[in-house]
């Protein structure tokens, strides 16, 4: 039976080349857009190295001071993190690191632009970078403010033409650092680990940052267990209430929630910056809604095309009914045909997505991006294609199957 359906389906596709082309184009184009978007989201938020413990890591990525007439939003400051984020119950490790700053160097007279992050030693224990040579700097080096640096492969290429870099020095931000380790490039969209050059926090040019509540730094906390995270967040929230605000006349309240990068993006994107709790489900609903709307257009198009095919296949429907096909059997046949068409469209879409993602990666739009398709994204693609197939097939199939056999044989619908 299935073999017969598949055979018939391919014959119909081959006979109606334009219809098949329009359908396949609609499905595969939509899938490409959705796949590329999904791959970018996956690339940005899903657990990938070095963020291997993402499931039990939260961070402080955003703070806001609120007063009756003023609001001040920025990254948290070092003092807030240093005084209040450390030693949370249930935390295994805590790391504080600076915002990535763009700095310039002039090796051999050419200008090189790099992103510089100043971090503590815990940074290297929470995030598992892949070291190509050497290793990270440790607690002692941070404490002693030694001028050592970890650089990425791209920086090694720019400064040393790809030769071994450990033990050699680089000058960035007008400071000279001895390279102790080289790591693989981390994509710019991974905000937590990303930089070109990482140096100890204590090498900052002044100590002024140590007294700031707001600005310039982030903190991440690795919980001992995923289950500890809610308690950890609650404890930090209560600690934040005790923070002495720098300008008590202008600001009454500090909102500084521990959350995942996705939750912070949801907070910033949807404008609920002053709320204590992030509402990531709103962003998920918004993204799902946009994706659904985007899928709806080709689905409706496919429904229309399919309905218009009814008349063309009326005689076939009449014959099948006359020879014993029930309406339900016919619905099954037409849905199988449609699912087959959408799966072909899905396969084409998937192939095109690989191509588009590779082109995007190579274009350098996002620094060090390695957009790729993984099983998770493939499952999404498959689910999307099936969504098309079933939704755009069921209604037309039902309409077809409801044709009165006598009318169908005459080639007209009542």
């Amino acid at each position, binding site marked *: *039976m299935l*073999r*017969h359906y598949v*055979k*018939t389906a391919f*014959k*119909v596709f081959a*006979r109606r080349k334009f219809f098949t082309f329009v359908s396949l184009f609609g499905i595969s184009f939509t899938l490409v857009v959705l796949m590329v978007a999904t791959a970018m989201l996956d690339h940005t938020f899903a657990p990938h190295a070095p963020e291997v413990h993402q499931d039990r890591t939260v961070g402080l990525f955003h703070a806001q001071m609120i007063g009756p007439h003023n609001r001040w939003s920025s990254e948290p400051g070092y003092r807030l993190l240093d005084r209040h984020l450390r030693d949370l119950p249930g935390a295994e490790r805590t790391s504080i690191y600076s915002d990535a700053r763009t700095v310039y160097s002039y090796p051999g007279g050419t200008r090189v632009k790099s992103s510089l992050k100043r971090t503590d030693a815990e940074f290297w224990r929470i995030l598992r970078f892949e070291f190509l040579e050497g290793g990270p700097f440790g607690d002692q080096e941070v404490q002693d403010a030694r001028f050592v640096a970890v650089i990425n492969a791209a920086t090694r290429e720019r400064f040393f033409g790809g030769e071994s870099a450990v033990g050699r020095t680089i000058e960035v931000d007008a400071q000279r650092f001895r390279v102790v380790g080289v790591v693989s490039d981390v994509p710019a969209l991974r905000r937590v680990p990303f930089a070109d050059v990482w140096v100890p926090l204590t090498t900052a040019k002044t100590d002024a940052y140590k007294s700031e509540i707001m600005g310039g730094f982030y903190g991440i906390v690795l919980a001992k267990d995923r289950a500890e995270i809610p308690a950890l967040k609650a404890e930090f929230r209560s600690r934040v209430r005790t923070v002495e605000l720098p300008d008590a006349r202008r600001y009454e309240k500090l909102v500084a929630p521990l959350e995942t990068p996705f939750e912070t993006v949801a907070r910033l994107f949807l404008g609920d910056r002053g709320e204590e709790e992030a509402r990531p489900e709103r962003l998920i609903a918004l993204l799902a809604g946009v994706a659904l709307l985007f899928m709806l257009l080709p689905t409706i198009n496919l429904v229309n095309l399919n309905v218009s095919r009814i008349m063309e296949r009326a*005689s*076939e429907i*009449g*014959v*099948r*009914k*006359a*020879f*014993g*096909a*029930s*309406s*339900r*059997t016919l619905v099954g046949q037409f849905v199988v045909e449609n699912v087959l068409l959408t799966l072909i469209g899905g396969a084409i879409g998937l192939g095109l997505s690989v191509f588009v993602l590779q082109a995007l990666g190579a274009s350098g739009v996002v620094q060090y991006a390695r957009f790729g398709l993984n099983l998770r994204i493939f499952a999404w693609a498959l689910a999307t294609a099936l969504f098309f197939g079933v939704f755009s097939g069921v209604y037309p199939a039902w309409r077809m199957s409801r044709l*009165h*056999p*006598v009318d169908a*044989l005459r080639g007209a619908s009542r």
Partner: protein
Amino acid sequence: MIRLSDIEKVYRTEKIETVALANVNLDVAAGEFVSIMGPSGCGKSTLLHVMGLLDAPTRGTVALDGRVVDSFDDRRLAPLRNKEIGFIFQTFHLIPDLSVVDNVEIPLLYRRMSNAERRQLALTALNRVGLASRVHHFPGQLSGGQQQRVAIARAIVGRPRLLLADEPTGNLDSQMGDEIMAILRELNEQEKTTIVMVTHDPRLAEETDRTVRLFDGRQVN
């Protein structure tokens, strides 16, 4: 085999009501070869569709082997059409996308059997109508007479006991028409298949056991 009692078929649209069949009573015994004659538009095809369970009468009763099927829904009618009845149409109604043998297999698709068994039965039916050499051709590659023979093979492949033929020779020249008629007669005589055939041709009607005449939707014999 099949009994129609007080059959009335009325087509209603918003403006007019057309009586296609009125007060038709017909009893076809197993093994009979019955022809239905009458001018165009007299309700011959409608009568055949009612007998074939493709169309429900507005009033009256259809009984197949004594079983009244008036209240049967699509799910119960479908297996009856599949096992008991075979159709032959004036315009063949072959599916152009499918090969000859795939067309013939259609009634068997709706039965539980293996692909091999299905193929074997289809080939036997094609052999029966003398088309064993054309199994992988497509309908468009065949003459009208050959296409109608494929349609007959499709109608008999499931060994139905009732064959309903709607002007099976209407689109063929007289020689091809005679060939088709010979096949039908043979099926009736050798396999004892009950046949009801609509025709315009008195010559063909004479070859059947009995002729039912319709005029304006009523029996006139």
